């Protein structure tokens, strides 16, 4: 039984799942990078 990425799970579900975790993480990382820049000021 092989993995059938293209024919199985719809792309929108994949995008939604990754956005659900990716957006908050990205926002947090950006905020942390902004705070980290204080080290170089």
């Amino acid at each position, binding site marked *: 039984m092989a993995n059938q990425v293209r024919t199985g799970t719809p792309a929108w579900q994949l995008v939604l799942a990754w956005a659900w*975790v990716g957006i908050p993480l990205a926002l947090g990382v950006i905020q942390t990078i902004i705070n980290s820049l204080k080290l170089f000021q």
Partner: protein
Amino acid sequence: MSLFSFLDRNHTIAKPGFSRWMVPPAALCIHLCIGQAYAFSVFNLPMTKLIGITQSAPNDWNIPELGWIFSIAIFVLGFSAAIFGRWVEEGGPRRAMFTAALCWSIGFFISAFGVYIHNLWVVYFGYGLVGGCGLGIGYISPVSTLIKWFPDRPGMATGMAIMGFGGGAFIASPLSVWLMSKFSTPTHVGVAETFIVMGAIYFVFMMVGAFIVRLPAPGWKPEGYIAPVQASKLITTNDVYVYDALKTPQFWFIWIVLCINVTAGIGVLGQASAMSQEMFPGKITAVAAAGFVGLLSLFNMLGRFFWASTSDYIGRKNTYFCFMVLGFLMYCLVPYTGSIGSVVGFVLCFLVIITMYGGGFATVPAYLKDMFGTRYVGAIHGMLITAWSMAGIFGPVLVNYIREYNITHGVPKAQAYNITMYIMAGLFVIGFIANALIKAVHHRFHMQPEHEAISGQLAVDAAGEPTGA
């Protein structure tokens, strides 16, 4: 009972065509939430002013008392992972994720009540004990599932999830501060309400993970992947039963290696701000030190993905050799960077060290899978997490107490950490030897085919499925 049948292991088996790339986000849903633990310190200061509001009143809690909340949670994390590891493995990922979500959110609600009635023991019980169980169960719940979905890249897969644990603080820290600002009034700090909202948010977020997680169907393998028939030198094709793994020297060598790697990193993470300011007085201000701590957290997260993914190419044992050798060199260099006043050198050394701290956590599930097979890797991982609990005590003790000892014996603050750095470097030598001693597990520990069949049946029974169906 049927109300919760959706949690059963057999209800989480993926239908044909399910994309395995849905599983890392499911794992991240859990790890991003429980990673909040790293950001708990944002509550420390507000919780010292629950009565006094603007400043601490005599009956307010103090920082050392509050520090125990995090310590208890991390201690319980290790031991709940060890105790519930086999249950997590046999009950399936959805049941474990659901339980973790319940414990984690209820832990927040109990803590909110503790804050409301101003009873610290209730907070210890809520966040430390109940929340700590959520941490332990949540931490190991997606590990073996990811390894089963990504047999071709187990390091990368578990690295992605465990990266989430490092990244959880990035979300929790600003969220906590923002919520407290919304709930605070001139007569109220707003911590209890923040706990309630965060508990509710985390429950929803983690349940999304529990709903989308799936186990691969028996016999599934990625397209184009050919499973090795013969075991290579350090990658077994057999399975070892969870309690038999404890009888192998390999388990304890990996335990020592992980404990040393975590000891080296955790002491630094906890004291980074003070250490950087004391080693470079006048050069690193309090604001810059806060930036340094943020940078460490970022590299801690990135190291998890980088090193775990790299281990798929260079092997787990070689990855840990890199940690031990680089760690030794970096810790030997730190006192030198202090003596020549090189802030850049100091920062670079600790950024490398902290990537390896995170990398050690993220690579170890795949190391265990290589040694003991996939069948009980989650449960064995749970047992191994006790190394983290122990390191949580060793690391801060090494850094804090030796610093205190040096300062009371007249050593200047800028040099008070030097001995600790050399002790850490020495620990890496021990870790190097322990890693070098790791060989393939003796075949007498391998599960026999009939035992595999029985354990598989037990797993089905544990999941509440009719055995003859």
